[in-house]
């Protein structure tokens, strides 16, 4: 697993969490660098929140070690660890004003009153909410409450900032806005941050690295680009973005660097692990990677004639369902931009030729 590095700020080794007989996390290994923004991404119930809570010490793992800033924190209670946390529910203290909420941690550190006041004003400015200090949480919108929760968490300058689905309870527009703000703030402060989310767009736009988790196991760790373009497993390919999966046979000759997959009567050039040769596989390609037009490279052997069965209008682009007699019963989707569809006068029922570029095809074992 590519999760391990040396000299990292947070080291997780062999972490397993069991609830009775149910294994929520299985042998997780992960390293997070200082100042890095890492997203735990996965479907609900995959264990991402469990992992976050283990890091915070809120639900201590069954087995395994966690090391933060060179210190073994595996068995420490939350109060003896160094982190700030923001929850989906904000968990703002309802009976305290905004200023008092933000000051709560500072007061525990025993600062002078005037210093606390100064820091609170600073923090309110930082999260873009000056002049709101005397309001109560219930008087604020969800987005504002989340800003306050963030200010409260970073007030004590924690070494690690944990965000547990911080944007899930917000409206779509607020979510997008706050997404950028959190990312900016994190870069400005340089605080190591872990965010749990089930929203891939959030993860792709905000994270330096994404940890994709499924059924308690890390499927892949990588930059957003790596995760999107070279998904390591079928699960990641399926979970992130849209993906066509076409049942195929892996054929060709490894020695001659001539690897192909056969789908129906068609053979497509592509690259994959030679060990798959001769096996039933799934060939995958993203709909937006399907190239349309009549000017394909003559050397491109991956061009096929297809019929447009249907076009689903999705605003900026159309998602076409394509079929071909050569493919048999297999159909796949391709995204065509609105411009392209206008220029090429693409419509339902047409027959067009498309290319499935070999570098865009990824092959997974079944």
């Amino acid at each position: 697993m590519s999760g391990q590095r040396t000299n990292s700020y947070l080291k997780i080794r062999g972490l397993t969490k069991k609830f009775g007989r149910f294994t929520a996390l299985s042998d997780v290994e992960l390293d997070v660098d200082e100042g890095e923004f890492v997203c735990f991404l996965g479907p609900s119930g995959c264990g991402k929140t469990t992992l976050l809570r283990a890091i915070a010490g809120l639900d201590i793992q069954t087995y395994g070690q966690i090391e933060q800033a060179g210190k073994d924190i595996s068995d420490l209670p939350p109060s003896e660890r160094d982190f700030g946390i923001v929850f989906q529910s904000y968990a703002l203290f309802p009976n305290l004003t905004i200023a008092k909420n933000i000051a709560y941690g500072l007061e525990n550190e025993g600062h002078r009153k005037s210093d606390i006041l100064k820091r609170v004003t600073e923090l309110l400015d930082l999260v873009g909410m000056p002049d709101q200090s005397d309001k109560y949480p219930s008087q604020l919108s969800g987005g504002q409450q989340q800003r306050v929760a963030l200010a409260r968490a970073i007030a004590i300058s924690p070494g690690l900032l944990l965000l547990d689905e911080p944007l899930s309870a917000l409206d779509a527009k607020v979510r997008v806005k706050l997404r950028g703000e959190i990312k900016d703030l994190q870069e400005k402060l340089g605080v190591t941050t872990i965010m749990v989310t089930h929203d891939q767009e959030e993860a792709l736009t905000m994270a330096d690295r994404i940890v994709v988790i499924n059924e308690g196991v890390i499927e892949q760790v990588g930059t957003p680009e790596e995760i999107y373009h070279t998904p390591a497993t079928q699960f990641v390919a399926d979970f992130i973005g849209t993906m066509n999966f076409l049942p195929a046979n892996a054929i060709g000759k490894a020695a001659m660097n001539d690897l192909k997959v056969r789908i129906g009567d068609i053979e497509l050039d592509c690259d994959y692990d030679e060990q798959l040769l001769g096996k039933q596989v799934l060939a995958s390609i993203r709909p937006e990677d399907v190239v349309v037009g009549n000017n394909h490279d003559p050397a491109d052997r991956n061009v096929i004639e297809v019929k447009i069965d249907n076009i689903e209008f999705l605003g900026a682009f159309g998602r076409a369902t394509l079929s071909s007699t050569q493919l048999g019963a297999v159909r796949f989707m391709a995204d065509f931009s609105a411009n392209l569809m206008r220029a090429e006068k693409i419509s339902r029922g047409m027959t067009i030729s498309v290319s499935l570029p070999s570098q865009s095809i990824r092959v997974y074992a079944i």
Partner: protein
Amino acid sequence: MTMEIVKAKTSRDDKQMLGFMLIIVCYLVVALALPLYAILSKSFKNHDGDFIGFANYLEYFSTPALTYSIQNSLTISILTMVISVTVAFILAYALNRSCMRFKSVFKVIALVPILVPSLLPGIALVYLFGQQGMIKSLLMGYEIYGPIGIVISEVFFTLPHALIIITTALSIADSRLYEAADSLKTSKIKTFFTVTLPGARYGLISAAFVVFTLTITDFGAPKVIGGGYNVLATDIYKQVVGQQNFEMGAVVSLVLLLPAAVAFFVDRLVQRKQVAVLSAKAVALEPKPNKAFDLVMLGYCLLVAVFILGILFTCQYAALVEFYPYNLTLGFTNYQFDLMDGGGWDSFYNSLELASWTAVIGTIMVFLGAYMVEKGKGFNMGRGLFQFLAMLPMAVPGLVLGLAYIFFFNSPNNPLGFLYHTMGILVISTVTHFYTVSHLTAITALKQMDREFESVAASLKAPFHRTFRKITVPVCLPAILDISIYLFVNAMTTVSAVVFLYGPHTNLASVAVLNMDDAGDIAPAAAMGMMIFYTNAVVRILHGFLTRGVLKKTQLWRIR
């Protein structure tokens, strides 16, 4: 690979919270578990303290005069259960599902019986239907002393309890179900039986068990109006106070404990299911006006109000009349309690003291305990034990608890024996007796708080007592005030546990009502009973103002 299970280190907070919890567990062990053990072991011993196995039980079950009470108790309890739940259901239906006027007035009236001792309706019934009763002819020759009187008193006494539970069940109706029924052209009657009743079924079952338990364990009503009709509760009193037969008292207590405990545990099971109904996302049902229906409901509520207020006014009238029925001039002769047997005005002041201590100490202890058990971490065994001990008092009838206290605290080798006959033991018994409902109120309030508050506080390095003081208590203040008023009111009205425990200098108002009634001073008994009512009413109103004031001042955040 070596797999070593990670054992979480306990933080200082966890240790302190654990300590607090253990203190309260110890309290519950001393104030509840050990006395109950004492009464259990007493039932297997003879006068001289020798173990004699089941001999006491054999004697009990071969004495028809005693076993007959089992049947009587069950008869009374089941009758009361059916009547009270029916009356309460229709009342709750009127208050929740009709558009009749004066709903809030009727709500207040329906809750009045909580404020009076269960002895009071009996006294009123004597005046209304007794030998020289004002409207004796309404009974058509039947005797009020006996099952009829007991059942009427118990219905009065249990009605508010049933009403509260059923109202909760009816108020969580989902209007979408009714719209669906409407759109399918379902008749109103069919909708009632297929939507309304099933929706309220857990509330109804729960109310039935609560009424059953309250009735079978109540001692006030059968004592005052039961005549020669013996029930288990009065038997315990007679065995102990009348015949000084403590061993037989213990046996009857355990016989009474059984149905009360069974009813309690079945109710707990049912309530667990109710939670599932509550958590469903529902659209609140708004009743629509219907002239005829609203009028019928108004008439019904008036009837119930007349019943409740009638009992109350009768008592007040009885208290003021010089010498019923011979001298009907009104005056305060009957308020000269110091001239009667029963403890005089001192007993009233003692009751105020008891109620105040119970409210203050009880609230602090219950809320702290609930907080520690709900928010603390680790030591699940102790936590489980705590939960069990906190739920147990509900299943233990007051008389049984009182008698258990005699056995435990009055035992010559108990170092706590000095408490006997003091205000201290009265406070302890009352707090313990009413622990469960208070505990549940506190737990509910704590559960409603965001469970991440503690996580956030820990990340901010706040010690738990700071978060407890700054966040938990202010946020839960309404519930805390509710617990304190509940404890105060019940401490004023309770008879059952304290009747065995008061001493020469710690007589109580509620016990004075009992003793004066016993001595034939029925009018002064009524007068004292009404004093309890007025005290509770005033405290209740003060509590209302206080709650509102406190909410205004400290709960600004609740207003959007």
